[in-house]
């Protein structure tokens, strides 16, 4: 008689490997976590929270974002209502400098330490970069010393250097999904082109913010693949979005990610990326409702976008700030590294 093979419990292994050792889960291990039954989700989230407290600490990084140039993007990212290739109701618009200064002030007033300026473009041109430069100067002239991040698409080396010279300290550029799934989501540029921008950003000394969107038709195995691909990039921050099916986009009829699946993703990404800032971003409202923020913050997330997103709305910033106070999670102070 041969004994049945002993089942290795992935959370038991993760306790040793990730919580004690600080070593992120492998792709196979992440997949095991993503397949955990619903009744083990509380245990997963508790472990993910312990990992976050152990390797990142109790502080939460709060950030606000604004769209400087909305809509009319030439790329075809199938989830995006700002692509000019789909009949989305989003119209192109530019935010003027006073509007940008106001948005930065609204963000700083919440106690946030990070303000991200975003543009819907393949990459910046001279006009956009000069708007960003003037905008940053105007924000500083307003007496606002909030840290400034940018998300302006793919960059050349020269543009990377320009952004560094402007004092941009973090650059956001999402890989969006697993490398094997990317060609199904975007056809106008490649995953490798995105990776190249991230490499230059890192080499120039800017912090790297890189995440993606869950719920774009990827398999569980591809979610696991994505988590370890992100981990291999060693980003400073990973924003985690859940698809909001936007009208006019090819994904408008996609179902939203189910709450339990979203929570498994949150826990699994924390266990794959024990030391990274893991930011709750778009889609948590549709996926998890108001409770979602709290479950995520107690499940490994240690950063949050407060207020609205770029074209969609979030819940009021004050609700999230009240929640952080209730959870006794201090907001990271300006100039202090997490």
């Amino acid at each position, binding site marked *: 008689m041969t004994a049945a093979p002993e089942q290795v419990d992935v959370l038991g292994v993760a306790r040793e490997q990730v919580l004690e050792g600080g070593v992120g889960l492998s792709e196979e291990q992440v997949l095991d976590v993503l397949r955990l039954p619903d009744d083990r989700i509380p245990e997963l989230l508790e472990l993910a929270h312990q990992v976050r407290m152990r390797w990142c600490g109790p502080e939460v990084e709060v950030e606000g974002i604004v769209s400087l140039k*909305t809509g009319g993007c030439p790329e075809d990212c199938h989830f995006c209502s700002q692509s000019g290739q789909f009949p989305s109701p*989003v119209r192109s*618009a530019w935010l003027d400098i006073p509007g940008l200064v*106001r948005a930065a002030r*609204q963000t700083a007033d919440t106690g946030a330490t990070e303000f991200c300026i975003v543009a819907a473009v393949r990459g910046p041109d001279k006009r956009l970069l000069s708007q960003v430069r003037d905008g940053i100067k105007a924000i500083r002239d307003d007496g606002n010393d909030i840290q400034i991040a940018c998300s302006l698409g793919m960059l050349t080396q020269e543009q990377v250097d320009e952004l560094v010279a402007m004092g941009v300290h973090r650059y956001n550029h999402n890989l969006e999904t697993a490398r094997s799934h990317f060609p199904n989501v975007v056809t106008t540029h490649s995953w490798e082109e995105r990776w190249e921008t991230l490499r230059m950003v890192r080499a120039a000394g800017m912090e790297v913010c890189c995440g993606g969107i869950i719920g774009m038709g990827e398999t569980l195995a591809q979610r696991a693949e994505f988590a370890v691909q992100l981990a291999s990039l060693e980003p400073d921050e990973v924003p985690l979005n859940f698809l909001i099916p936007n009208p006019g986009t090819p994904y408008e009829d996609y179902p939203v990610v189910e709450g339990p699946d979203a929570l498994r993703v949150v826990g699994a990404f924390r266990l794959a990326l024990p030391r990274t800032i893991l930011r709750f971003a778009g889609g948590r409202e549709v996926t998890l409702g108001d409770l979602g923020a709290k479950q995520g913050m107690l499940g490994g997330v240690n950063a949050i976008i407060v207020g609205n997103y770029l*074209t*969609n*709305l979030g819940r*009021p910033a004050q609700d999230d700030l009240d929640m952080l106070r209730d959870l006794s999670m201090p907001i990271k102070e300006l100039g202090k590294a997490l």
Partner: protein
Amino acid sequence: MTATGQAVYCGYCGQGLDGSDHAACARRLGVVDPPRFCAACARRMVVQVTPAGWTATCSRHGALDSAR
């Protein structure tokens, strides 16, 4: 709110409010979306979302903003 005119069109999908069901549209407007279509003329509006709210401008009927 400075826009004028009666609400005849759905701000989410731009279709007429009479007849068809806009409950799903109302849910999206209540949670994650600013209005995209003018309620008086169904033109697509220029919408700017900011950390604290949104503004939506119809070229004919003027601007709306969130109270938030």
